[in-house]
């Protein structure tokens, strides 16, 4: 199977503080990887290293078979950053304007074509917010805003979707529908890397888990993760998975 992201012996530090130490993992095309770990464990830093927007101090990262920091096909990656639901609170952007940003890497300095607009419209319909296209982002609920950012990633026709705690501030019902949408997209062939704190939600949807607290404690399928001691080791205390519902 084709490897989308390949991380080899990567270490990264902010000054003296090591955030990621000697981590190796790979993400295959079409897989759904969950990144989990305590607060400040280096998850976001690892994701940024995987996406090539940070350079490792040592080690090597490949993205779609190319060195990540030299990778230039930005349109192949859709990214939803931490606290993205806060974006657009003050800036008067419409949903359509945000989703259209997904086409910018394709067109560069050129003009958007009719095809670009059709792709944007299709992306809006796919995440079921076509009727909200001309609303200001600030008028949307947290769940609708997340769908907007996913639509932006779809508009870029991304092969890889990277999401950093995308459901912070989103109500439980919207979260479930959001993860169902991710499942659908993954079944459609999009590779997904997801940072999520809720272990229960994570293990229900992803097919593999990387557990990190500076170092990598586990990387494998969901079943092997649940059977391992990785969680307790990474969090430094006895941890287990408790099944619960999101009312």
């Amino acid at each position, binding site marked *: 199977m084709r490897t989308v992201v390949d991380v080899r012996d990567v270490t990264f530090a902010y000054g003296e503080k090591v955030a990621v130490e000697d981590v190796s993992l790979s993400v295959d095309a079409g897989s759904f990887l969950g990144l989990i770990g305590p607060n400040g464990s280096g998850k976001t830093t690892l994701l940024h290293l995987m*996406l090539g*927007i940070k350079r490792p101090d040592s080690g090597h990262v490949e993205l779609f078979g190319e060195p990540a920091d030299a*990778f*230039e*096909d*930005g*349109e192949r*990656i859709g*990214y*939803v*950053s931490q606290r*993205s639901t806060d*974006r*657009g*609170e*003050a*800036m*008067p*952007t*419409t949903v*359509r*304007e*945000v989703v*259209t*940003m997904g086409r*910018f*890497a394709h*067109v560069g*300095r050129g*003009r*958007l074509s*009719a095809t670009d*607009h*059709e792709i*944007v*419209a299709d992306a809006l319909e796919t995440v079921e917010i076509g009727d909200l*296209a*001309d609303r*200001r982002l*600030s008028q949307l609920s947290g769940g609708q805003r997340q769908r907007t950012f996913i639509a*932006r990633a779809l508009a*870029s026709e991304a092969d890889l979707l*990277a999401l950093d705690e995308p459901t912070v501030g989103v109500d439980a019902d919207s979260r479930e529908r959001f993860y169902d949408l991710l499942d659908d997209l993954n079944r459609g062939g999009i590779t997904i890397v997801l940072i999520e704190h809720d272990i229960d939600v994570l293990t229900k949807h992803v097919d593999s888990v990387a557990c990190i607290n500076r170092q990598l404690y586990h990387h494998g399928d969901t079943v092997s993760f649940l059977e391992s001691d990785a969680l307790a080791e990474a969090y430094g205390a006895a941890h287990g998975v408790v099944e619960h519902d999101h009312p």
Partner: protein
Amino acid sequence: MSLDTDESPAVKTGLEAGWLASHTTRERVELLAVAATGAIAVAMLAFIVLDWLRFAPLPAGLDATAATLFEQFMIAGMWLDFYLGTNVFRFTFVWRSIATGALVGVVAPVVGVFLVHRQMALIGETLAHTAFAGVAVGLIFIALTGWTGSLLFVALVVSALGALGLQWLTDRTDLYGDVPIAIVLSGSFAVGTLLISWGRDFAAIAIDVEDFLFGSLAIVTVEGSRLVAVLSVVVVAVVALFYKQLLFTTFDAQAARVARLEVDRYNTLLIVMTAVVVVGAMQILGVILVAAMLVVPVAAASQVARSFRETLYLSIVVGQVSVLAGLGISIGASLPPGGSIVVVAIAFYLLAVAFSDHSTGAISVH
């Protein structure tokens, strides 16, 4: 300015079906306002160019044509004086100030709309103070060397260097982002005042520094208006060319990096354009008030606009109307232009707040 971003297929179909049928009353009024603003900007640009060309070494006949066309502006000024009962619009320097102000009213919000929504509203104030240090450097340099170049050009160079220095400092400090801004703001002003005080001890400084602090119609020189004309064309062209990139990096810099947009390069571009606009606006508005034109029209437009594109267009309209109305008040009541323009702009902002349906606040306060 043509900004190609999110023109929906629905809008395009509407254009084909008929302009009137495809737009709401609000859209029609806005489009007319934007068209009028653009027409005024082009006319004022033409005035400055003709003012330039009539004395330029042109092939035989062209200089006379330029002079004849220029005369039409002056005749229009006399008619204005006749109908308004004034005695100001017949003077070239008044038209020069109005033309410079009208262009500043357009380009300041064009840059400001990105600054405000990056929460960098105070950077204009900082770069204005850097430009003040530039004016001081220029005054000393001219007094010492007898150089006949433009004082504003020196201010432009110093302000642009200050902008790059500020970005360098911001990238290399662990403190909050507004700390380097505060340091550069006060530091530039300190250097400016020291240089002027020091220079007065041994050189004749012919310019009233207060004019630069509070703005004055009298300090809009021929060179100053030409500089603003050229810079306005460049700034509008750059924003039109890189609108998509500036929008994306403003909205979500991290996602823009992932999409392989050169975020740092666009940040530098924006901050240098800010320095350029500030130097142009400083003549009319003064160092103290120049940031207002970058911020207030955008704040007003953000309250009522329904999209980023609409914010940009409305802020340009508010910017230019504020400048023209402010200059009118300034001329009519013999008041400083900077204060008059800013008060008009703030009146627009308060009106926008009063009639806005975005009650949660379009601009966050930190």
